[in-house]
């Protein structure tokens, strides 16, 4: 099963204005750099982006924000991006903030065919507003709904041509659950290998979830806070 596309431009060619995207990564770690650049070039707009963070002013999702291509963000932490903050406070950008674990679980649930589930996180806070509350094990829980996307755009370490993926270190983060929740999942990888080269016991995300894959180029892999001993 060959799911290989030539490059990011081909992978994202049919993304339409107004669609919902999931974009993997935590901070700038494990973000789909090639696809983000291609979307800036394509000038696709009015996007709803589900991503834990919003990049920084001049990298990651910040590049799409700068060009006003994003209409709404669903995130958990957006603290490193001034343009984001400006657009949010001015009302240009709609923002839905989720507890990080709830966000991750809503995404996994979307991929797993579970439309809604109860969690304790956010009870008694503004996150719970308008949500059903039910007590389990003596503790109040709130009902959260699944998230799905028209396209999930993720970054992996190694992938084979059948779409099987392996992530590296903490660059996995949201990439794995998001890979499950896209109607179409696009994976860009550091290293694209032939079918049969990956150990079937070590696959993090089986190929059934991935529709398109390509080997990325020119990864900058910018470090947000380089901290050394």
């Amino acid at each position, binding site marked *: 099963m060959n799911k290989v596309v030539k490059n990011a431009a081909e992978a994202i060619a049919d993304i339409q204005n107004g669609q919902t995207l999931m974009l993997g990564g*935590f*901070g*700038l*770690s*494990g973000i789909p750099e090639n696809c983000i650049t291609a979307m800036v070039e394509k000038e696709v707009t009015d996007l709803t982006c589900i991503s*834990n963070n919003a990049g920084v002013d001049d990298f990651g999702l910040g590049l799409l924000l700068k060009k006003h291509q994003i209409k709404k963000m669903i*995130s*958990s*932490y*957006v*603290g*490193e991006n001034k343009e984001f*903050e400006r657009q*949010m*406070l001015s009302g240009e950008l709609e*923002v839905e*903030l989720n*507890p*990080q*674990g*709830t*966000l*991750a*679980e809503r*995404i*996994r649930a979307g991929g797993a065919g579970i439309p809604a589930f109860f*969690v*304790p*996180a*956010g*009870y*008694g*806070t*503004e*996150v719970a507003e308008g949500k059903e509350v039910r007590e389990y094990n003596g503790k109040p829980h709130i009902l959260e709904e699944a998230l799905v996307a028209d396209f999930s755009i993720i970054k992996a*370490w190694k992938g084979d041509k059948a779409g099987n993926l392996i*992530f*590296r*270190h*903490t*660059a*996995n*983060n*949201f*990439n*794995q*659950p998001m890979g499950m929740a896209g109607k179409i999942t696009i994976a860009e990888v550091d290293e694209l290998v032939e079918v049969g080269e990956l150990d079937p016991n070590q696959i*993090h995300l089986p190929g059934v979830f991935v529709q398109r894959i390509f080997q990325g180029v020119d990864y900058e*892999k*910018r*470090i*947000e*806070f*380089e*901290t*050394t*001993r």
Partner: protein
Amino acid sequence: MALDKTQIAQRIAQELQDGYYVNLGIGIPTLVANYIPEGMDVVLQSENGLLGIGPFPEKGKADADLINAGKQTVTYLPGSAFFDSSLSFAMIRGGHIDLTVLGAFEVTENGDISSWKIPGKMVKGMGGAMDLVAAAKNIIVATTHTDRNGNPKLKTKCDLPLTGVNCVKKIVSDMAVIEVTDKGFKLLERAPGVSVEEIKNATGAALIIDGEIPEMTF
């Protein structure tokens, strides 16, 4: 004299137990890692997908694929494991983390905490804090006793948006160690040289004071 940040971290480290899995928040909590008692097995969890956080990397060895929840470059240790965000919060939500240490803007006598939003001013988002406070078995807040303007951070009611309710178990501030009991704040220890009276004056809620309050030891 009130504790400095590293002393707060040092005091919190005394709460660690052998075999604990611990999540340390950004800021003072991160410093707790420097004071894990020699020979004690404590595994640090980073909610972006790492069990077994190691020290910061040597100069020139930082790896963009290996960061902590504060987005700082880190290393990993023998016995570490990497995993995705949904499994990471399954760990947290499922009660598998023994202790969470985090900062706060305000804490109330019934264990409510506000830590993530100052309306009209700061809109960074809650990150994993709401999940952590809703689910960890044991939550310790590391904080200064008062804010920059000298106003109490330990109160009867949070004025800022909440992170969680009825969840904080203990507070280690620069002035005191305080337990959150069913009946409210209970003073356990004083910072060296800080009087009970000074702590009372800096606290925005009643303090239960039971007998002689010892000074912290380090």
